[in-house]
């Protein structure tokens, strides 16, 4: 055997040996997300389960949250989270969907990227800065527009959340809109349909589930948002009177955790109650995100082109 071919054989064997461990390393890295998710559930749930065994259903339906009195009824907090998020969606859905349809269907290609980049920058602004802007601009504005003494209200939180949810909605729904096969669109236009008719009868039906998913993801984002909401929501653990009164202060779950975790001593009742809240939040967003995922997957099949 010549020297060259020996070297070649060795190299070949070596590369075969190398190949297997590399695949294993790659696989381990990929499974890391599962491991983390599992650990996350394990830790939050084991602490949170303690709260449920301590306080039982009271934690879900109890009306009073007062840590000093040892009362851990999270209903007003859960209500606050849902209320603020629904308010945010009511603003963000028309804003986000309008924007993404306009960008993909109307705006000329050359400036499309610029506008998309700006929306992306909107998503990059940290929530603490949104909260800051809320305090110096939005809160006083709401107080003077509605003639109330304090602008720290559910409305302020919803408005901030709406701006923060728009990029999510635009991003995901825009993706599905532009993934609609061009042939469908062209076929419709060739038959003499206007752009609007094509949009209504061809593009939107195909992109329907992607759009629905974008709204759900936006909802999940809004429910889980912490800092910005905390800074403007007023933080009073009470169901507003009447319950649809957006000019009352609220105290969403995320804010409670952020505010009270620092003072709770390790493994105290308060500590476990806060993890119980974290568990509620985790399960809620998990369900929302998984449903959105399933919806998108279904859409991938209908749309014809797998992404």
């Amino acid at each position, binding site marked *: 055997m010549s020297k060259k071919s020996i070297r070649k054989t060795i190299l070949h064997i070596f590369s075969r040996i190398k190949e297997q461990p*590399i695949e294993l390393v790659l696989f381990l890295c990929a499974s890391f997300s599962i491991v983390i998710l599992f650990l996350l559930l394990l830790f939050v749930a084991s602490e949170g389960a303690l709260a449920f065994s301590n306080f039982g259903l009271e934690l879900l339906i109890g009306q009073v949250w007062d840590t000093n009195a040892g009362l851990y009824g999270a209903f007003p907090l859960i209500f606050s989270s849902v209320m603020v998020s629904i308010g945010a969606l009511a603003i963000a859905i028309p804003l986000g969907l309008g924007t993404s349809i306009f960008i993909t269907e109307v705006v000329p290609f050359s400036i499309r990227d610029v506008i998309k980049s700006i929306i992306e920058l909107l998503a990059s602004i940290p929530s603490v*800065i949104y909260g800051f802007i809320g305090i110096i601009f939005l809160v006083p504005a709401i107080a003077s527009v509605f003639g109330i003494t304090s602008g720290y209200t559910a409305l302020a939180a919803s408005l901030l959340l709406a701006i923060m949810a728009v990029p999510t909605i635009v991003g995901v729904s825009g993706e599905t809109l532009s993934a609609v096969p061009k042939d469908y669109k062209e076929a419709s236009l060739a038959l003499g349909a206007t752009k609007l008719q094509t949009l209504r009868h061809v593009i939107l039906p195909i992109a329907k589930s992607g759009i629905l998913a974008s709204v759900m993801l936006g909802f999940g984002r809004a429910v889980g948002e912490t800092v910005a909401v905390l800074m403007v929501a007023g933080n009073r653990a009470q169901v507003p009177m009447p319950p649809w009164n957006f000019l009352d202060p609220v105290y969403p779950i995320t804010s409670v955790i952020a505010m009270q975790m620092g003072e709770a001593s390790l493994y105290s009742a308060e500590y476990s109650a806060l993890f119980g809240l974290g568990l509620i939040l985790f399960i809620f967003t998990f369900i929302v995100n998984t449903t959105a995922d399933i919806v998108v997957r279904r859409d991938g099949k209908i749309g014809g082109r797998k992404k």
Partner: protein
Amino acid sequence: MTETTKERVVFFALGVPMVMCLIAFFWILAILSSGAGTLNLSMLTTSALQGGLFEMIVGTIYLLLGAAGVAGPIGVLAAVYLVEYAPSGKITRIIDQAVNNLAGVPSIVIGLFGFAFFTTQLGLGRSLAAGWLTLSLMMLPIVIRGTEEALKMVPPSFQEASLALGTTKWRAITATTLPSAAPGIVTSVILGIARVAGETAAILFTSCVLITRGLPKSPFEPVMALAYNMFVRIVAIGDPAESVFGIALVLFLIVAVFAIIAIVIRTYYRKRQPWLR
């Protein structure tokens, strides 16, 4: 009403939300830049003990680079597995689902987990290292998704050419796919950095303190960060919001720089690499 007029009316109505989004963006810029007067350059290099921002800025950068150091390699390798190796079966779907779900976990829950696991269980305490690990969890899905996208955009013919020359799969990937996807991968990491640069909830209980004497000397010491400082000063201490204008501005600039770099790299290479179009 004819179809054309109807079309114009509807499309005009759809344009309104977009314009509102743009207005909101520039409005935010205007509000932030109105505080530029409170900032002077010497504050950037003055210690926090003398009212400057030095330790906060460097602390924020420390946190971000460390988190990117953890999430970057793991995320890129995970994406390589998912795109190039994963058999399209159940396991892959579960991994995919897990990445999506991790992306959707609220930052405050990540913070709770970081506190329970890294800070308490692993005994890292309130430290830079705990912050790195916690933030890297938030970065990971962004890096994985971005890298996946970049890898998928490389035409399979590149790798096939390499394989046809008798290379192993890993060699083909490192020689053709990864270099071609490099700009996209870098973009995804930078975007990940931009996304967590202003993250507050995740580092609230895991790594930050209001004031330190100088910079942390080891990863096991607590650290100062711009976002944390803004938050605690306004919410816990009750300082007027105007007093943190300078911090807000610096934080925004850091985030904007990262985000714009990512966007520019992406746009530039999309033009340079013809197969990306």
